[in-house]
């Protein structure tokens, strides 16, 4: 589904990704871990097409198409979804208007008909229930006046509503208490299927107690320096990052 080869990218003239390789297949959950400043969020933003990030080199193929050449909106329409680390407020636009517009834009791109209001309402109710979200949040302005936890839950609501092929979750667990973490994880697990894939970007192992990854990668200085199964996360939790850093530096 996603194939990243030798990806190099910079932001504000600073090289961040320095030759990253990653392959994600349908049905897989990949966790990307790593210390601060290793390039985790850059990877998420580059994949989503954030114009502040510049790709210097490398290839990114998504479902057989060259992702790098696509506008951010076309990437979204092709099925790339980014759950933002810091969700943005859109004052005066209700969550439901926003979601209905997004769904219909994506459908239009795929030459499908608009979703009927009836279908939309039953869908949003169903998905909000999974996330234990109050109906009032649906009719409030997008993220405006939401608590940190509500914003993160709202990102997952969008994920469930848009049902993309690839979900990239950028530090969705940060700032969540344990109850909220469980709810958000429940949402992500509800999304998971054999047809789609998830990339979890996280600092902490605790998210991986609730969303079990198939692969864990350690990102350090803009490259993946170690990959393994879910047990790698536990090892990192126990031993910290220093030992993998040393491994990487030895290789250099």
């Amino acid at each position: 589904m996603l194939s990243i080869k030798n990806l190099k990218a910079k932001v504000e003239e600073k090289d961040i990704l320095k030759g990253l390789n990653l392959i994600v297949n349908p049905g897989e959950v990949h966790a990307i871990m790593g210390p601060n400043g290793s390039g985790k969020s850059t990877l998420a933003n580059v994949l989503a097409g954030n114009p502040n990030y510049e790709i210097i080199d490398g290839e990114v193929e998504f479902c057989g198409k060259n992702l790098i050449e696509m506008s951010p909106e076309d990437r979204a329409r092709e099925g790339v979804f980014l759950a933002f680390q810091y969700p943005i407020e859109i004052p005066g636009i209700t969550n439901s208007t926003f979601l209905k517009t997004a769904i219909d834009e994506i459908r239009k791109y795929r030459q499908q008909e608009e979703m009927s209001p009836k279908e939309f309402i039953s869908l949003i109710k169903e998905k909000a229930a999974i996330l234990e979200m109050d109906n009032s949040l649906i009719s409030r302005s997008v993220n405006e006046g939401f608590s940190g936890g509500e914003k993160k839950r709202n990102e997952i609501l969008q994920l469930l509503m848009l049902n993309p092929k690839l979900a990239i979750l950028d530090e969705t667990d940060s700032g969540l208490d344990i109850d909220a973490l469980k709810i958000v994880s429940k949402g992500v697990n509800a999304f998971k299927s054999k047809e789609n894939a998830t990339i979890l970007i996280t600092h902490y192992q605790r998210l991986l107690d609730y969303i079990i990854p198939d692969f864990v990668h350690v990102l350090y200085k803009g490259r993946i320096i170690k990959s393994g199964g879910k047990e790698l996360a536990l090892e990192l939790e126990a031993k910290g990052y220093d030992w993998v850093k040393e491994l990487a530096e030895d290789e250099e």
Partner: protein
Amino acid sequence: MTENDKLLNDVTNSDYKWGFVTEIEQVEFEKGLNENIIRKISKIKDEPDWMLEFRLKAFRHWLTLEEPKWPKVKYPKVDFQDIRYYAAPKNKPKLDSLDEVDPELLKTFEKLGIPLEEQKLLSNVAVDAVFDSVSVATTFKETLNEKGIIFGSISEAIRNHPELVKKYLGSVVPYTDNYYAALNSAVFSDGSFVYIPKGVRCPMELSTYFRINAMETGQFERTLIVADEGAYVSYLEGCTAPQRDENQLHAAVVELIAEDFAEIKYSTVQNWYPGDKEGKGGIYNFVTKRGIAHKNSKISWTQVETGSAVTWKYPSCILKGDNSIGEFYSIAVTNNYQQADTGTKMIHIGKNTRSTIVSKGISAGFSDNSYRGLVKVAKSAEGARNFSQCDSMLMGDKCGAHTFPYIEVDNNSATVEHEATTSKVSEDQIFYLNQRGLSTEDAVNMIVNGFCKEVFRVLPMEFAVEAQKLLEISLEGSVG
């Protein structure tokens, strides 16, 4: 098609307009302004002496005045002797078919969903023959007549209802009010007159759409709306399509009178030619709009201003009667080199008078957008309350947004609240919406719509939809 659209379509296909136009089209006055011209205007309109006197007094007063310099707008000086005061509004070239119309203009019409026949009318293409001998306009007038509502041109009203016009004309905006009000009082060509009798609720939204001739009066329009005791009327002014008018200067006067327990809702969508992308051409829109609210009455001004090169406009309420209410809801959009200095005045005189001001200014390109508002609470206005909210939104970093709120309170039982915000359409917001599948243009529209929501909510339904589209068109290409 909604009922209103149908009416509209039918009206544009009727002969109502032509009967009115031909008789004056042959007349063309020389350029310049003097007493002789004013006498000619009055004569050709077959006005009574008192009307001529009104015009002459206004003209003599105008001669003593100077153009206001305080608005935050810049434009070359207008040569008032170089304007044709009578036939000028008819000067647009007549075209034979839509093929001759500027394709840019047609594209805009299409986006706004303007019916074909109306497109022709707006771009001054001769409209085809009559469909039905009994025009809808006439049917519409009959419905109003049954209720005793008078709705027609102000010229007709001067002839047919002199007692009403005499009583109210200039009572809210006297010719001494300001430079452009004096000029308008001297030379106004036509405009609308509305009278709603005691206790009557006007059954339909009155619109200049229905009076095609009003659209042709252009330059110095004069509107007078009277809602007698307990009456209600909602009036829609203007047109959502851009009018390519060659007239540089528009100086209109609108007066509203809400008698005890009456309510007037006045909504405007102004989309005069704003000039080109380099700031060449465009209309100077210098308008005086004011209403007087008597006991327990209510006046609401709602405006969506996207056109004109220079706008200078402050729809105001004099809250004279106890418990009267004034409202002002405004969206002003400027793009390219447009300049707008607009806002309102709420003058609290009666006890327990209330006013609400919600102003949304959006500036893009190299434009300048100012809110200027006065809230005045007189000594007599025991318990008066005002709430003002002035929000500005900037697109890009070459435009300006300014807020000039004036507050004068002479009664310490009054409550006056003022809130103001300035925001920018941020790249983060656009990227967020892009990431959810919206194009950048749709993202900007969504952000702007959210920003203007409080005003859209109070617009009459049909206007609201068109106003949203208009905003989209006005801001097209403003974010790269």
